[in-house]
């Protein structure tokens, strides 16, 4: 398969077929926490795309040039990656505050939230640490930097896509005649389950 084809497959596989929220159920807290309105979901999605891609690049390099050569990655990868992600979020926050106050106001509260978002850690680990990447594409023992970035971009855009779909559904649900007992969170969970069925239905496409 050509390189471009392989990258496209990696992207689609990460975004839709192995959607991090709806087929793998990682990072469900923001999925339920900030999906009550479209505007907050857009802020969160943008922030996740931004931070996840940067975090994967940074952890990939930390693994390649620091943890793997020293041979300490097997047991040290979680604290090291968390440290990198937290520092990165801080940095991005400072940068945004200076460079784009408008964007900072819009993303403001979602940026710190991402530090503790397990989806970011999961994706960073999968793209950096050999043996964690589970999709059925033969990319050798570990991902290259370019592949890691394409994969993370796919995952984060899939995250945003699922979040926005769900937020749109929830906004409709606000006006729907939901039985009293199911109002609020219960109907949101049921909706998420049905939405998840739709995504699971994609399983096996392109052999992924």
């Amino acid at each position: 398969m050509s390189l471009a084809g392989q990258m496209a497959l990696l992207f689609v596989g990460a975004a839709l077929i192995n959607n991090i929220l709806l087929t793998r159920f990682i990072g469900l807290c923001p999925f339920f926490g900030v999906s009550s309105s479209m505007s907050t979901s857009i802020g969160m999605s943008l922030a996740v795309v931004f931070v996840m891609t940067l975090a994967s690049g940074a952890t990939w390099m930390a693994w390649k040039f620091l943890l793997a050569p020293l041979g300490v990655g097997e047991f040290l990868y979680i604290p090291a990656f968390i440290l990198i992600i937290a520092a990165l979020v801080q940095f991005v926050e400072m940068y945004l505050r200076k460079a784009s106050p408008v964007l900072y106001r819009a993303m403001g509260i979602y940026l710190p939230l991402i530090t503790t978002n397990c989806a970011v850690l999961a994706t960073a680990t999968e793209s950096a640490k050999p043996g964690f990447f589970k999709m059925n594409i033969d990319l050798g023992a570990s991902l290259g930097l370019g592949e890691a970035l394409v994969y993370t971009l796919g995952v984060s855009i899939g995250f945003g896509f699922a979040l926005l779909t769900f937020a749109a559904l929830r906004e409709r649900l606000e006006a729907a005649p939901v039985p009293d007992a199911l109002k609020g969170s219960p109907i949101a969970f049921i909706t998420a389950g049905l939405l998840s069925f739709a995504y699971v239905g994609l399983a096996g496409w392109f052999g992924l």
Partner: protein
Amino acid sequence: MDASMVLKAVLALASLGLVASGVLAVASKRFHVEVDPRVEQIASVLPGSNCGACGNPSCFVTAEGIASGSLPVTACVAGGQEVADAIAGLLGVDRCEVDTVVVVRACGGGIAAARAYDYHGVPSCAAAARLAGGPLVCQWGCFGFGDCVKACPFGALSLDERGLPVVDLARCTGCGACVQTCPRSSSGLLSLVPERAPVSVRCSAHSKPKERKAACSACCIACKKCERACPSDAIHVVEMLAVVDYEKCTGCNACVEACPQQCIDIYGRNVARTTGADGAGWRAVAAGSAVQEAEVAEA
């Protein structure tokens, strides 16, 4: 595991930490944003509990608003006079009078109120209110599961032996967090009142006095004795319920003494202990303990 592995691990984490802190240190200098120094000062004066009573999402946003002049120095509802004075001092403006508000509970039912059914669900007022309107016969009464107590960011509320929330006025800031939480606050069970006129009617029922009396022994029976006793025309029975006009009330105590149901109370910071001044429902507790003592004596 040999020592060199430990050393390598420490080295790896330390170097990562050093790089990260270095980058952040440089970034904090490079990307430094000038903030009005008064904002920090004002934020340090504000209570900092982010209660939201002022209508802003956090105390810091309020501080920014006060510093930029878009909010008045009295913007902090929870802080009251003290905080307003401090902020006025910081900004160099004249003092502003703040009408301090505190929360009061308009119910004396508690354990004395009749139950329509036994409730064994989640111990939360919100949950109880959803189950056929709650276990109380009186549809205005306090469930006594303490959702308001949990909601109070200042620890000013507590449940007592009567199963009713009592307010520690020394701690109450009038932020209204409890009022927003209470499922019965729409009918006035918890409400914010000015502190300078310290009389509260411990009943919010609007049913017929006869039905009310059957549902709860501590209710207002609309006998109008308080109305007649009041020298300043400040308390009136409106729609079968005694209501205080806080513009006229002087806190003279006449209605409190006149009420045969003991359902009117004086509150206020000048009253030594709020719980002591909160008389409604205590008769039921006393009657309950008398019954228990009699049972003990019989045994």
